[in-house]
C-alpha cells in the first residue's frame, strides 16, 4: 500500500518528530510512504479567519501536490477536515475544481482513521508502558466522527487508556481565537488541564497538532509533569519499546 | 379596539415576500401534506387512532400511569366512580382542605365528589358563573380554595399530560390557582401519543371551522421552577401537588 504523507505546516515547522513518528508507524505496518515536498499549508489558518481567497489559493496548491497520490495521510484532524470537508465548500461554485476536490477528499485520511480502517491489522508493538488519556480534537470528532480509532490504537500499543471528564470538550485553541481572545481561550484550557490531571495519566494524547501545541504550551508554562503526545508518537514509542 | 389596517398588513407581507425572492403572492397552497390532508382522510386517521387506543387500552394506561408517577403526579388507580369520589375525599382530608373548588362537568353526576368531600369535612364549591355567582366570584373562590378538582378532555400517555379545555362550567383557574390539584381521568380518555391528540384536534378543527381550538392546556406535572441556582423547586405559581385519579 502506498500513501503520501501530508505533514501539515505545524508538524513541518514545529513538530517534525511527529512526522517522523508517523513515518515510522506507517512503515512498520508495511505502507510505502512518500512525502511530496512542494506541500506547505492546507489553508485552514486563512479559512478559519475568514480569508477565503487566500484559503482557496492554498487549497489549489494542495490539489496539485497530491494529485496522483493513492492515499493521503494527515496526522491532524483539523487539516484532514479542511481537505476532506471544507475544500468542497471552497470550490462548490466551480464544477471542475469541485471534482478534483472530491477526489482528494475521498483519498484523504486522518492518520488514526487510516491505520484502523485502511491499513487494518497494524501489528503494532505492545511496548508502550503507562497510562494515557485521550483528548478528542474537535475536528477529528465532529467533522470526521473519529473517536474509537485513536483509543483502539493506544490500547493496542499497550497503553492503559483512561477517560477524562468531558474528553469531547474543546481545549480552547480554535486557531485565531487563541490569540484574539487569550483570556477566554486559556480559561477553557484550564478546565481541560484539570480534567487531564484528574485522571492521573502520565500523558495526554490527541490527533491534532493545534490542540497539542495548545496543551503542551500550558503544561510547559505550568511545569506540569504530564506529557502531551500525538497518538503517532505514542505508537512509535511502543514500537521502540519505550514507556511513556 | 386596536386593529391594524389591511394595507399596512399587505405592505408588510409584501416585504416578507420580496425577502424570500418573490414578487407576488403564491397562487397555490404550498405542497405541505399535513395541511392538505382532506377531511375524509383525517376522519380515517382518527378512526384508526380510536381503534388502536381501544385495542391497546391496558398497555396505554400502564404507560400513562408509569410516566405520570415519574413526572411527579400522585397516582390513584380506582375501579369505580364511587372509589374515585372517595379518593378525592381522601386527598382533601390528607391536606386538611376546608374548601375544594371543582368544575361543573357531567363527570360529577357519576362521581359524587361533593358527597365525599363533605364526609371529609371539606366544603365543595362549584366554580361556574350563574345566577348567584359572578365571574369575579369564580376567580376569587379559586384563589381562596385549598384544592381544585376537574375532569379532563383527554390524557396523553407519552407525556403524562392531562388536557384541559376550558369552557362553560370549566374555568381555567380551577386547575391553576389552588395549591393542590386533582384530575379525574377515565381510562378511555387516555391517548397514546401527542400525535394522536393533535390528529384529533385537527379533525375537530376541520369539522367546525370556527373556534374549534380556542384554548387548551396540558398539565404534565406539578408547577416547578429551577430559576434559583437551577435547584428544582416544586409549586411556584401553579399547584405544587398534583393528583391523578384514574378510573379503569
Amino acid at each position: 500500500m502506498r500513501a503520501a504523507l501530508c505533514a501539515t505546516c505545524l508538524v513541518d515547522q514545529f513538530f517534525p518528530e511527529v512526522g517522523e513518528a508517523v513515518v515510522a508507524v506507517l512503515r512498520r505496518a508495511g505502507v510505502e510512504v512518500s512525502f511530496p515536498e512542494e506541500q506547505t499549508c492546507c489553508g485552514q489558518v486563512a479559512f478559519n479567519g475568514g480569508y477565503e481567497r487566500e484559503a482557496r489559493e492554498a487549497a489549489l496548491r494542495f490539489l496539485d501536490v497530491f494529485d496522483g497520490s493513492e492515499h493521503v495521510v494527515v496526522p491532524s484532524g483539523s487539516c484532514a477536515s479542511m481537505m476532506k470537508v471544507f475544500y468542497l465548500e471552497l470550490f462548490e461554485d466551480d464544477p471542475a475544481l469541485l471534482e478534483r476536490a472530491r477526489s482528494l477528499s475521498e483519498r484523504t485520511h486522518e492518520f488514526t482513521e487510516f491505520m484502523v480502517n485502511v491499513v487494518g491489522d497494524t501489528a503494532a508493538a505492545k511496548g508502550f508502558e503507562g497510562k494515557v488519556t485521550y483528548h478528542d480534537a474537535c475536528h477529528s470528532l465532529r467533522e470526521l466522527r473519529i473517536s474509537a480509532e485513536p483509543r483502539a490504537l493506544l490500547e493496542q500499543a499497550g497503553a492503559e487508556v483512561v477517560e477524562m471528564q468531558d474528553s469531547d470538550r474543546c481545549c480552547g485553541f480554535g486557531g485565531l481565537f487563541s490569540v484574539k481572545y487569550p483570556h477566554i481561550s486559556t480559561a477553557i484550557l484550564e478546565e481541560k488541564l484539570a480534567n487531564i490531571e484528574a485522571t492521573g495519566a502520565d500523558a495526554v494524547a490527541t490527533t491534532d497538532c493545534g490542540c497539542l501545541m495548545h496543551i503542551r504550551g500550558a503544561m510547559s508554562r505550568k511545569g506540569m509533569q504530564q506529557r502531551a503526545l500525538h497518538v503517532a508518537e505514542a505508537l512509535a514509542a511502543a514500537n521502540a519499546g519505550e514507556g511513556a | 379596539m386596536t386593529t391594524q389596517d389591511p394595507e399596512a398588513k399587505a405592505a408588510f407581507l409584501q416585504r416578507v415576500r420580496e425577502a424570500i425572492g418573490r414578487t407576488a403572492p403564491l397562487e397555490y397552497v404550498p405542497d405541505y401534506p399535513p395541511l392538505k390532508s382532506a377531511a375524509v382522510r383525517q376522519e380515517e386517521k382518527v378512526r384508526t387512532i380510536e381503534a388502536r387506543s381501544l385495542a391497546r387500552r391496558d398497555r396505554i394506561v400502564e404507560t400513562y400511569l408509569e410516566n405520570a408517577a415519574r413526572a411527579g403526579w400522585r397516582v390513584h388507580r380506582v375501579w369505580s366512580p364511587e372509589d374515585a369520589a372517595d379518593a378525592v375525599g381522601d386527598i382533601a382530608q390528607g391536606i386538611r382542605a376546608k374548601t375544594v373548588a371543582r368544575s361543573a362537568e357531567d363527570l360529577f353526576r357519576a362521581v359524587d365528589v361533593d358527597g365525599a368531600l363533605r364526609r371529609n369535612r371539606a366544603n365543595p364549591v362549584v366554580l361556574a358563573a350563574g345566577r348567584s355567582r359572578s365571574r369575579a366570584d369564580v376567580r376569587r373562590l379559586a384563589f381562596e380554595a385549598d384544592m381544585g378538582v376537574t375532569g379532563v378532555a383527554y390524557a396523553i400517555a407519552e407525556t403524562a399530560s392531562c388536557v384541559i379545555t376550558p369552557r362553560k362550567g370549566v374555568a381555567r383557574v380551577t386547575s391553576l390557582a389552588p395549591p393542590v390539584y386533582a384530575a379525574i381521568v377515565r381510562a378511555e380518555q387516555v391517548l397514546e401519543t401527542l400525535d394522536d391528540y393533535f390528529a384529533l384536534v385537527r379533525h375537530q378543527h376541520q369539522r367546525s371551522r370556527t373556534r374549534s381550538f380556542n384554548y387548551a392546556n396540558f398539565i404534565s406535572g406539578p408547577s416547578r421552577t429551577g430559576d434559583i441556582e437551577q435547584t428544582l423547586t416544586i409549586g411556584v405559581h401553579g399547584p405544587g401537588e398534583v393528583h391523578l385519579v384514574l378510573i379503569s
Partner: protein
Amino acid sequence: MSVRTAQFRSASAQAVADPKLQTALERVMGHFTEARAHAIEEFPGDSWEQLRERASAIKAHTLEHLDYYLELVDKSVTRNGGHVHFAADAEEAARIVLDIAKQAEAKQVIKSKSMVSEEMELNRRFEEAGVEPVETDLGEYIIQLAGETPFHIIAPAMHKSRQEVSALFQQWLKSAPTNEIKQLCAIARDALREKFRTADMGVSGANFVVAETGTVVLVTNEGNGRMTTSLPRVHVAISGIEKVIPAIEDVSLFLRLLPRSATGQRITSYNSFVSGPRAQSDEDGPEEFHLVLVDNGRLNLLRDPEFREALKCIRCGACLNTCPVYRKIGGHAYGWVYSGPIGAVITPMLTGVKGAKDLPYASTLCGACRDVCPVKIDLPRLLLRLRQREAEGDPARERSSTWLERMLMGRWSNAVKTREAMERSARLGRFLQRPMERSGRIRRLPVPVLSGWSRGRDFPPLARKSFAQVWRERLAQEPSE
C-alpha cells in the same frame, strides 16, 4: 435592548475573572448538558436524528413560504376573534403594544417570558407610559428587580446566588432574609399572586405560532404562562415572525424537541394553546387577544440565502449550554438579547450594528453547537461566513480585521506559496526567535496579533530542521519494511 456588543472584549474578560460567576456557570451548564444527554438517550438508533431532520425541513419549508404562512396566521387568528399586528421593528412593535394598553386603560401588565419584548425594551417603554410591567417568570422577575437583562434564554437569573436573590427580595418586597430556595420561591409566589389577580393586561411570548389554527403555543413550567393568558382582560402575545409552523399536527414534533433540548425534560409542566379570546360562555379568560408578529431585522436573515437557516432557531439554548466559550463568559458579555453561538450569528444580522463585529470571532469553531441544535442549524459555518464577510470587507459594515491582521495574512499567504518560500520564512523565523528561546520554549512572544498566546502558554520554537529537511536527510532513503 440597547446594544453593548462593542464591549465584548472587556465584558468577557470581566466574566472570566469573576469566580462567583464561574461557579454558577459550571454548575448550571453541567446540569443542562447532562440532562439533555440523558433525555435523548430514550430515542433508539437514529430516531432523534430523524426528529431533527424533520423539524429542520419543516422550518425550511415554512421560511420559503413565510409570506403565505403569516397571512394564514392572520386569517386564522382573525377568524377566532383575535387581532394580528405586523411590526417592522422594535419601535413599531412597542408602539402597537402601548396602543393596546392605552385602549384597554391598563395600569398594570403581567408578563410571561418573551425574548422579543427584550428586543423592544418593552418594560422601559411601559414605565415611560405610566404602566407598571411585572415579569412573572421567577428568573425574569429576579432580573427585573435587579435591573438587569437575561443571562441565558432558558435560565435568565442563573448567575444570581440565593443570597443575592434574598437581598433583592428584602430590598423590594420587604421580606425576611432567608437562604432557603423553597422559601424564596414562596415569597415570589405570594408577591406575584396579587399581581396576577389585579393586572389589566397580560403579555406573553410565543414558542410556536401555528398557522393552520392560529394558535400560540407556550411552553412553561411555573404556571405563570397560564396565569398571564387566563386572568387579565387583555392578552397580547408577541412573537418573532420566524416562530410560525404550518400545521397543528406539527406541534407534537416540536414539543418533543424543545423541552429535551432546553432543560432535558420530556415535557414541561404546562403547555398552553391560545387561539383567540375566550368564548362568550367561558367562565374566564381574556376578552381580547392580540398577536404581534415582529420583523426587527429578521428579514435581513430571510433575504440572505446563506443565513436564512438561522431563522429556524426555536430558542432552546442548547447551543449556549454546550459552547465552551459561553460556558466561560456567560450571556451578558455578548451585549444584546441573544447570546452564545446563535447570538453571535444573529446579533450582527439583526442589529446591523458595527459594534457586533467581534462576535463571530468569539468561537473556537469546535462544532459542539451544531451537534446539539434541534433544528440542525450549521452554526459554525454561519460564523465562518460572517468572518469571511468581515475579512473581505462587507461594504455595509466596518471591517473587524485590523490592517495588521490582514498584513500578516498576506505574509502568510506568500510564505506558503512554495516550499522554498516557506523554508526561507522559517530560516528568518529561526534567526529572529533566538533571543526569545529559553531551553526549548518561548515564554514571551512580542509579535503583534500572536502576542496573546504567551498569556498562560509557552510557544514552541520553530524546529531546528523542518520535517521536509529531516525527510530529505534521513527518511527518504530508508526503505519500507
